[in-house]
């Protein structure tokens, strides 16, 4: 697909679903903050991080071993995204990519590489943190253990998905991004993102069915 088609796609997207494509007031604010940061304004940096940290953490935590690991990853994502934004802006304002799009793209890549480089044995992240938020002392019922085991296998299966499927799936179920934003962040069409999501869902079902078989 050509860039021209992509622009065309975005310009015809209904405004209600327009999250990352057009120039909204929020987007202009973001551009101003990035510009201010790039000339040395730490407050602008802080504001950009605060606006996006929940999203970035939501993306990286699937790949992190511990909450501290997730925090470290998120910090690296921001620094690297700022660096990428700076490089793109050097080519002039016309080369500027919305900062949030850099963030999403950097987050999924950096987190996955972190996982790949630092971990050969797939271990479920955040496993020790009880779902209810407290420290669980009572032994779990057998059906709860079965459920946890299925969840653990599912997390493994997510990490083994083909790259595009994994990116689309996790940006949807972890970061809860609209498909329009997922598509623009990954430079694919919204329809391609939706089809990838469907394929990911099917692949996970197949993985689950395969593992449940005796």
């Amino acid at each position, binding site marked *: 697909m050509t*860039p021209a088609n992509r622009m065309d796609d*975005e310009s015809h997207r209904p405004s209600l*679903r327009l999250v990352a494509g057009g120039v909204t*007031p929020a987007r*202009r604010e973001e*551009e*101003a*903050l990035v*510009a*201010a940061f*790039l000339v*040395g*304004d730490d407050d*602008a*940096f*802080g504001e950009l*991080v*605060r606006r996006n940290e929940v999203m*970035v*953490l939501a993306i990286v*935590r*699937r790949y992190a071993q511990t*909450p501290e690991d997730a*925090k*470290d990853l998120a*910090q690296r994502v*921001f*620094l690297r995204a*700022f*660096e*990428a934004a700076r*490089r*793109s*802006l*050097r080519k*002039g*304002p*016309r080369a*500027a*990519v919305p900062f949030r799009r850099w963030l999403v*793209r950097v987050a999924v890549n950096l987190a996955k*590489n972190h996982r790949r480089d630092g971990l050969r044995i797939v271990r479920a*992240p*955040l496993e020790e*943190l009880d*779902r209810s*938020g407290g420290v669980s002392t009572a032994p779990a019922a057998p059906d709860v253990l079965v459920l946890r085991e*299925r969840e653990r296998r*599912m997390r493994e299966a997510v990490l083994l998905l083909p790259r595009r499927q994994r990116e689309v799936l996790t940006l*949807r*179920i972890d970061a809860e991004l609209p*498909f329009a934003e997922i598509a623009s962040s990954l430079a694919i069409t919204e329809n391609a993102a*939706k*089809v990838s*999501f*469907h394929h990911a*869902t*099917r692949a*996970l*079902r197949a993985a689950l069915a395969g593992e449940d078989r005796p």
Partner: protein
Amino acid sequence: MTACQDFDVLISLRAAGALDPEESARLEAHLSTCAACRAEAEADAAVLRLAKLPAPTDAERQATSGIVKGALAELHRREGRASSWKRTTAAFAAAAAILVAVLAPAVLGRRPAVPPEDASAVTAAAAWQEPDLDTLWSDAGLLDDDATSSADTAVDAALVAVDL
């Protein structure tokens, strides 16, 4: 096991809560008459429930707070080491200065929304053009991280150096 093909993508999107009202109405009408697709819908929903991570606990939220502070500290550390970090081209500095002058006070002050009528902002917005994302991504070495080593391109090697 197989859903009616016209609906299989919509069924997955339904499980993700991503249907618009028109799609939803169309799918629900079909589901009310098709047991096979109802089974598909349930299977998709079930697998996504399993795949979804638990919400962060208070303990996790606590452990991941303070990103701004940590990132700023790291940024300053890097700036101290690489003094060229903020060196910018004259063209970029000028463009940035204009944007800051026009927009930053509104954002960094009490943060009122930038008025859409703001002539300068509208001009800036009109001048903005979607770049070729794939070119930019690959320039930054972010496009093919799965297929290649993350240090494959010269630009990315530079990024990695900054990352140390």
